[in-house]
């Protein structure tokens, strides 16, 4: 164990390989993927009718559950708005027709024309839903003539309030990745190095290889803990994130090490070279993280990706880890089921890793 730790500290290349991918994913996901789209829109008021002004206010003022404004609304005259739309400066053009109050008092349904630069269907969907949200807000409690009209509304009851911004989810998932990937890489480097440096021949001479592997696992745990704490501090400093259940993090960390070490040991024993094995382990971990809910909960997938996510045991680690880290805990049933699945995967992989390691070591 001590020899492996010394080796790790003396080789900056290995430390960089352990930390750099996590840092890069963290920084880029945080800076570029965590932004909620605020859609730029030009609003043309054909007159200064009070109802039209109220509708324009609804469009400009509505926010998401986490407090992000839906639209970046700019009031313009028709020609300017059209010019902005054609120059690609705004995504949509909303024209609120003249005489809105009178038309509503007359009992009419008034259509508000919008033109959307349909860049892609997802952006258009967001645009339309936000418009519909604003119109619901306008139509609710609308007083026209002597009557007030109501529509069904929804009381949204979330498990946390306000809705958590996406950056928190990404930070939690990347911290989970840090636990699994850093322990996998540490195990990989410790084992593959023995094959690469041919020191495996000396190791094979020992009567029992289990303590050797155990020592490597302990060394990997220490290395992974250092990397995970580093990523935790980075997320704290850059994004202001800290887990809701700081005390439970060590338990999750040990769970992650137990779950991920076996597969990494198999890969390292088979590939036998530090860099290729490290890259392969990295790819497996990052792809597994992605499929398991790295960017969004895997329950949201359908089709092939959902099947892959359901079959990949890592999904069950991330599901509990991310939710517990963000919300402080998960239901006992979910924790137990997922602990059993990942525990079984880890319990199968560790003996398998030992068997593969012994076989490959004796063949050298």
């Amino acid at each position, binding site marked *: 164990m001590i020899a492996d730790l010394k080796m790790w500290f003396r080789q900056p290349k290995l430390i960089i390989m352990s930390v750099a*991918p996590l840092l890069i994913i963290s920084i880029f996901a945080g800076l570029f993927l965590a932004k909620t789209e605020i859609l730029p829109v030009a609003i043309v008021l054909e007159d200064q009718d009070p109802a039209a002004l109220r509708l324009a206010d609804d469009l400009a003022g509505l926010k998401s559950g986490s407090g992000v404004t839906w639209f970046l609304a700019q009031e313009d005259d028709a020609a300017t708005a059209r010019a902005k739309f054609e120059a690609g400066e705004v995504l949509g053009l909303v024209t609120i027709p003249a005489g809105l109050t009178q038309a509503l008092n007359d009992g009419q349904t008034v259509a*508000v024309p919008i033109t959307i630069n*349909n860049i892609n269907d997802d952006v258009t969907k967001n645009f339309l839903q936000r418009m519909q949200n604003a119109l619901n807000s306008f139509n609710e409690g609308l007083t026209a003539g002597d009557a007030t009209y*109501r529509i069904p509304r929804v009381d949204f009851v979330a498990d946390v309030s306000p*809705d958590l911004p996406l950056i928190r989810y990404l930070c939690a998932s990347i911290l989970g990745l840090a636990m699994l990937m850093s322990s996998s890489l540490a195990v990989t480097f410790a084992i593959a190095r023995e094959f690469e440096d041919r020191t495996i021949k000396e190791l094979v001479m020992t009567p029992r290889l289990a303590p050797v592997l155990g020592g490597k696992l302990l060394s990997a745990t220490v290395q992974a803990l250092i990397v995970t704490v580093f990523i935790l501090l980075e997320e704290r400093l850059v994004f202001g994130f800290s887990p809701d259940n700081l005390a439970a993090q060590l338990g999750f960390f040990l769970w992650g090490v137990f779950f991920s070490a076996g597969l990494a040991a198999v890969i390292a024993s088979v590939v036998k070279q530090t860099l290729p094995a490290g890259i392969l382990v990295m790819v497996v971990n990052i792809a597994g993280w992605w499929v398991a809910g790295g960017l969004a909960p895997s329950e949201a*997938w359908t089709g092939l990706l959902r099947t892959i996510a359901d079959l990949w045991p890592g999904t069950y680690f991330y599901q509990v880890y991310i939710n517990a880290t963000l919300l402080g805990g998960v239901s006992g049933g979910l924790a137990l089921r997922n602990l059993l699945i990942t525990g079984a995967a880890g319990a199968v992989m560790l003996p398998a890793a030992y068997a593969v390691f012994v076989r490959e070591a004796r063949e050298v």
Partner: protein
Amino acid sequence: MKTQVFAEIAKSVRYWTKHKLIALVSVFPPLLICLLFVGVFQTTGIVNIAVVNRDAETPSVWTERFLEVLETRTGTIPYFTPVFTDEQTAQTMFDMHETFAVLYIPEGFGQSVEDGDPLSLTVKFTAAHEDISKNVRLGMEARIYDFVKLYQLDAGARPGVTVEENLANASLPRASYMMAGIMIWTMVFFGLLVGGALGAMEKEGGTQVYIQMASGGETASLLGKWLAAVAISGVMLVFLTLCYVFLFGVSFPGAAGVGWYALMFILLTPTFSLPGVLYGMKVGDFRLVPAPMIIISITLWLVSGALNPLEFSAGSAVFQYLPTAAGIRVLSYALFNRGAQFAGKSLLILCAWFAGVLLLFFGRLAARRRKHAALGTQAAR
């Protein structure tokens, strides 16, 4: 010189065909990226929602109508797949993450709509992920809008405001839109990776010294590897493009679309393969090539409008001058007719980068000549 360059190209192609693992390393990341990025965006949009109908015992036409609207697959996604269940099962589904939300329809809901004073619905949902929360909230708002429009506003039962949408362009799924970015990233990645691999092969094989000794050997080697990297990238891009077409549904709008695609390759791949070759020559070890190339190319891709249009992304004022951003804009215009207003400027940006790489090539040659001349003078002294 010409013979030396051709020999270098032939040698590079032989190296590539002999090292199939490198070819595999090159092809695997683009396919993985496609599966992960495009797969994610292709497969979201239909959401299970547990529905606890507390109004079931007093059947009402309004409650039935509301549930029908909830199930419709028209209008904007997410579409809900309601799972009607009792309170306890709904709670279990929620706890076990089998559903993101539980909709509770209150007793007397239908009658209250009939009376013109609707009771509030309740939606319990998980708010741990902003995008999911947004979809739950806005998805419900969209269905309520549909309900009110269909049965009240369109029926003339009350006054109100509706939206009349007019789309400036034809429908384009987000996953399809993202393919333009992935295709550009593939060109960049191949340029860097193949260039890096070819650049590293001389040091790896211990043949670098022979090249340095031959007259004009370094120039021929650099030029030959650069051209070979472009040629090999081209062949691999054809294979990958076929994968994109048959596996991920990419389609080209006629010969012009293919022409634009080829032009992007001609401008982008050489722009990145020369730095790739130079890096490979410097490190002299292929094992040090893939990781930085993947990181650089993915970084460039992400900041260049990979997921969303660049003009609505952070830092677009600066990032629009990146060759990747310009390439994505031109290809989005060529394939999907999106962003015509940016196409001309982006093409100029690409040409400028290409010219910059040519300058880099000639600049390096000049620098090497000066260095050799200085060494010769020193030796003569």
